[in-house]
């Protein structure tokens, strides 16, 4: 066969002649059945969602990487779960917990005695003894330059001053007594709890003595408090003065008005 040139529409004719439709009916029917079977297979293989199944012998490239990533995440999660919380978080939680406990114990204290030491503007030493036995009554004794003064006072629980029913036994009225200014916020456990309302930041901890010291800020005044970890009550307060305290823990009661019951009986005396 020698190469030559095709004329005009000879290509068209050649194509029609050689590729004319000669599909036998029997073969056409076979192909039709095969096509319908193939469609059913495609649908079954896709499962209605995945268009094409992976070819056999070709492992997915992403599957191992995904498995590894999932394992890594699980391991990291376990480590995170088992690890100690960060020091700053643990410290913050501990301080918050201690402050809540101390407040709760103070509000339930049965009795309180304290020694407050300070110096006045002239540098003279002042020592106050505070005896609190009843919810609204406190006895204060001041020792100053060899002299002693004492007051029996009625205190309102949440006010910084003295109650209207204050009964002074000293030389002056307690409302105007400047010498009591130092101890106004220390006259009862309830007032001390109010003084300690603020942000607590741990300063140090004495494991042997089982005490912990915190700086309290954001409250009525900045105070450094040392807590007895056995009772969760304050042992020592510092804020320009130093107060050493001794509490008699009360019975913990979930009823906030339990301490008011005796007063009510007194008020309702027959």
């Amino acid at each position, binding site marked *: *066969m*020698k*190469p*030559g*040139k*095709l*004329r005009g529409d*000879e*290509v*068209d*004719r*050649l*194509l*029609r*002649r*050689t*590729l004319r*439709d*000669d*599909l*036998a009916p029997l*073969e*056409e029917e*076979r*192909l*039709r059945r*095969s*096509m*319908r079977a*193939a*469609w059913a*297979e*495609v*649908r079954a293989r*896709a499962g*209605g969602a995945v*268009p*094409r199944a992976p070819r056999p012998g070709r492992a997915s490239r992403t599957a191992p990487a995904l498995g590894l990533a999932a394992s890594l995440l699980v391991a990291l999660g376990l480590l995170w779960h088992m690890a100690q919380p960060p020091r700053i978080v643990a410290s913050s939680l501990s301080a918050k917990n201690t402050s809540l406990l101390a407040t709760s114990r103070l509000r339930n204290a049965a009795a309180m005695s304290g020694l407050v030491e300070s110096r006045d503007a002239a540098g003279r030493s002042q020592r106050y003894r505070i005896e609190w036995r009843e919810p609204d009554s406190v006895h204060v004794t001041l020792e100053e330059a060899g002299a002693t003064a004492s007051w029996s006072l009625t205190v309102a629980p949440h006010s910084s001053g003295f109650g209207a029913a204050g009964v002074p036994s000293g030389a002056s009225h307690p409302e105007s007594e400047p010498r009591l200014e130092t101890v106004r916020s220390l006259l009862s456990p309830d007032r001390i709890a109010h003084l300690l309302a603020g942000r607590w930041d741990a300063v140090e901890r004495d494991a042997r003595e089982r005490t912990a010291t915190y700086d309290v800020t954001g409250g009525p005044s900045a105070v450094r408090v040392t807590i007895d970890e056995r009772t969760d009550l304050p042992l020592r307060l510092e804020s320009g003065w130093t107060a050493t305290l001794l509490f008699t823990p009360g019975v913990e009661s979930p009823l906030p008005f339990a301490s008011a019951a005796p007063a009510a009986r007194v008020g309702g005396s027959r």
Partner: protein
Amino acid sequence: MVGDDCFYERHLAPLERRMLRTVHRVLRDPDAARDALQDALVRIWERRHVVETHPHAEALVLRICLHAAIDALRRLGRRRETTGLAMEGLPAATGRGPDASHEHDEQQAAVLAAIAELPRQQALAVVLRLVEERPYPEVAQVMGCSPVTARIHVMRGRSQLRRLLAPLVPSSTEGGSA
């Protein structure tokens, strides 16, 4: 899914005959046609949501079938090249003498080999226009292009085929004048 259940009956059953004949016309081999149809059906399944909303769903289905057939034809040609076989020995048409049948098969194999060498779009245009003798608007619709572009593809395909089928001139000329 109910929609998938009736997809075949709604979109493919009316085109069954044309799909079968188009694929067979390009491949001339039942097994190859079966494989190509399966590939086409997989692609149609993957794009079934497009087919359902396509303004010319029939044209889209036929395009997918033709692409599958032409791809299969190319694979067939490459395989025969690598195994050292010519595109001969394809099923012969019935009702011819041995010589005529042989010549026809030879020409058919040469034509298919030439179409397999064309760029995909040109091959598609040639089959639709020159073999199936579809009007240009329909060729363009199936190809998904404008009629002008379809004409250009046909023209370039024909030009390529003239070069590729040049060795058949003597016999084609004789065959044409017979």
